């Protein structure tokens, strides 16, 4: 068995041993969103994107149930759309999953979605609204989680480019050796 094959086999064994100690997926509770005063967004239309239902529009006040399950959270996001123009995108914060939340839409100002959120738990506990905030679209701690696909894609492409560069240089070096008779 060549050295390379042995190394590949060792890496596979190492991987399987690591995976053997991985805990199973944690249960993930569902969430209930009460979306109210959607009329105030006109002429914009409220759009929701979720893992379970894909991409859809909401035209009237509605209760939206985000299903529970196992494993990592599937982000639910919403924004308002008018023709080709869309507002900023709003994501649920990490601590809002598995809760009952009332989202009260107020208006759209300068292409920003203005709304307030309340977590419904032992009476109304108001979180606050975003009307005075400068940045509504990025829950601070969720940047990495919400953009993991983009970051991973870019990183993988970079690794691919580096590998290509290394292989190309090795071929050049081998070609030069053969050319000079150094086999």
């Amino acid at each position, binding site marked *: 068995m060549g050295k390379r094959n042995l190394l590949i086999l060792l890496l596979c064994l190492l991987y399987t041993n690591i995976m053997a100690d991985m805990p199973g997926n944690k249960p993930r509770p569902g969430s209930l969103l009460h979306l109210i005063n959607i009329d105030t967004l006109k002429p914009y239309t409220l759009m929701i994107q979720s893992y379970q239902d894909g*991409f859809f529009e909401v035209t009237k006040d509605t209760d939206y149930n985000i299903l529970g399950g196992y494993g990592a959270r599937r982000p639910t996001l919403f924004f308002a759309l008018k*023709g080709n123009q869309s507002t900023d995108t709003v994501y649920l914060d990490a601590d809002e999953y598995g809760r009952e939340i009332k989202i009260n839409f107020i208006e759209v100002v300068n292409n920003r979605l203005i709304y307030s959120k309340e977590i419904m738990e032992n009476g109304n506990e108001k979180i606050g609204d975003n009307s005075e905030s400068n940045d509504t*679209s990025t829950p601070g701690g969720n*940047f990495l989680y919400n*953009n993991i696909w983009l970051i991973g894609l*870019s990183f993988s*492409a970079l690794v*691919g*480019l580096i590998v*290509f560069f290394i292989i190309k240089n090795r071929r050049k070096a081998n070609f030069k050796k053969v050319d000079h008779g150094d086999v």
Partner: protein
Amino acid sequence: MEMFKYLFLTLIIELPVVLLAYKNQWKTSLLIGLLLNLFSWPILTLLYHYSKTPLLALEAGVFVVESIGYAIFLSSKWQKAALVSFIANLASLLIGVYINGINLFS
């Protein structure tokens, strides 16, 4: 994953330009064009949505990165690489601006 439709559009606009320019090494140019776009597009998207950097400045950055990439990985002259990157990115920028109704100078 709605945003990935824009990645797909970027690829179908830019890759043919690269393939045409580097016909004699089309397999390598297809791979490098794909990898460079998969590297630069997510960074452009993140910076566009999360920073106040103007789109034109971001596209200029992408143009520079892709020019360098084409010159190094396709062993191309700098001038040709820059021209290919400019045409490809200009085409994808203009089509993207038209589709989304973006004002480039706001």
